[in-house]
């Protein structure tokens, strides 16, 4: 019996240590990211990192300005959200409220294919199909623009937005909808006056997660946005090349000498990126929990 209890305790400890590795990993991730990032500020002040409008990491004199990259990420992400949120929510409403089950059962896996396609394949498709298409149809000097990135990212965010919104809409109690229909409202009035508002917090969690996905996406934007580190105007910047934080890290890390200021600047950008997505995650998760409990 003592033997048996020892074994049970031993196994429980093993399981515990496995589970704690996730916490340790996140902790180490913060430490390594931040500690390599912070070294930058020995030579460059935090204010200049945040306010400098130029990113010239190899020019003389060097500029490590976050601003163009941050704004690059923001404009691409904003475009993606404007493009994908209405589309995703509309698709989710159609799938869960209108489509007959047979069609829904076909459409759903099809949208899930979008989630399976690797980002480098999206990037490649954007590069060989969308870039020349936009260049020609909009008469731009180059098709590698923020808009191109937004469209590709928007498509990539669709499955996340659709599936979580659909969950939220499905979890609206039937009685609520029937109540509205019984009052003589049309199906559409019921959808936009009752169902969607009731599912709103779930839908906003979906949007947050979609934003988190878009802001952290690397390969696709790197391949289709042209990567020039200038502060984009709005909305004119949509039609010009931009460079995001993610693309900067991936593009430049290969060429920097380890331990240089440039190297540490890339870690500093990584830290900013991490903190941003961390906050988005926490908010999305908070919203998601709340709507689960309230229904």
């Amino acid at each position: 019996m003592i033997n048996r209890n020892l074994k049970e305790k031993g196994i429980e400890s093993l399981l515990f240590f496995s589970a704690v590795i996730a916490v340790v990993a996140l902790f180490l991730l913060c430490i390594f990211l931040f500690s390599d990032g912070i070294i930058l500020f020995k030579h460059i002040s935090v204010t200049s990192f945040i306010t400098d409008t130029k990113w010239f990491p190899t020019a003389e004199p060097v500029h490590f300005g976050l601003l163009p990259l941050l704004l690059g990420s923001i404009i691409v992400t904003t475009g993606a959200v404007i493009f994908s949120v209405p589309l995703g929510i509309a698709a989710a409403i159609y799938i869960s409220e209108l489509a007959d089950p047979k069609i829904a059962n076909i459409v759903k896996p099809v949208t899930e294919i979008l989630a399976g396609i690797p980002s480098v394949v999206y990037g490649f498709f954007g590069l060989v199909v969308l870039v020349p298409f936009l260049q020609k149809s909009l008469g731009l000097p180059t098709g590698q623009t923020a808009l191109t990135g937004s469209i590709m990212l928007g498509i990539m965010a669709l499955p996340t937005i659709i599936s979580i919104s659909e969950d939220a809409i499905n979890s609206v109690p039937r009685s609520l909808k029937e109540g509205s229909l019984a009052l003589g409202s049309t199906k559409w009035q019921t959808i936009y006056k009752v169902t969607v508002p009731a599912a709103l917090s779930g839908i906003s969690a979906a949007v947050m997660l979609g934003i988190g996905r878009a802001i952290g996406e690397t390969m696709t934007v790197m391949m289709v946005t042209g990567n020039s580190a200038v502060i984009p105007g709005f909305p004119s910047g949509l039609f010009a090349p931009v460079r995001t934080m993610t693309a900067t890290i991936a593009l430049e890390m290969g060429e920097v000498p380890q331990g240089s200021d440039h190297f540490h600047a890339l870690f500093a950008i990584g830290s900013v990126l991490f903190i941003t997505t961390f906050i988005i995650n926490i908010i999305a998760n908070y919203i998601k929990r709340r709507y689960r409990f309230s229904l």
Partner: protein
Amino acid sequence: MFSNAKTNEKIAFAMLRLAVLAVVAFVCIILYYIISNGLSAISLEFITEMPRNRMTEGGIYPAIMGTIYLIIGSMAFAMPLGILSAIYVNEYAKPSKTTWAIEMAIINLAGTPSVVFGLFGLALFVKYLGFGPSILSASLTLGLLILPVIIRASQEALITVPKEYREASLALGVTKWETTRRVVLPAAIPGMITGAILSIGRVAGETAPILLTGAAYFLPRLPNSIYSQFMALPYHLYVLATSGTNIAQTRPLQYGTALILLIIVLSVNIIAVVFRNHYRKKLSR
């Protein structure tokens, strides 16, 4: 008034339908382009030969092998760890600060951008632990990246095992671990494996993390140890499409590589779904 509402409804529904059509159209267009252009590039030589003539001719064999090594390496690391973690969280842990911390860690790891994982892998595995740019560093980095996916899938599989099974076993005077091992796990394993298979697709497609932890532009031979650099499909596609020699001329190679990658990822997804449905039927008999 009444007919107005009807007209509005008609217009609204038409737009919803249009939205779904648009989404489906995206899928079809992307698949169409890759498949129709890639098919002609694929041949036996393409998948079994080394690249030749500065990657403007020949096959993608080393990139396929590299991706397979990464899949094996990262799964070997993340799958046992993920399953054990899920067992702890679902079966053993009582609500406490520690379990809260574990849950939060899983959620935030899942939402961390892959390029940040790349930076982390570079700092920890490549530099600090001295594994260098290598299969090992990249596998561990990818393993951490898919860990939350595997944990979530395993947790979901455990949740579907009825509480009654556990109670019945415990009431027979069977210990917690024996109960878990003999009653809970057999019922949950299919779901866990489905989750693991799905994350294979993720490993095969990720580029940014391996870019920072050991993927090579070109290697004349296969890697000979876990400390070697390696080629991998997604990075190879990126290289060919953006910085290879004679980009326009090698388009067929690029489409071919994209198609192979797509085939791997989608077939892995299909296998996972078929596997799950097969076992669902078996269990719910």
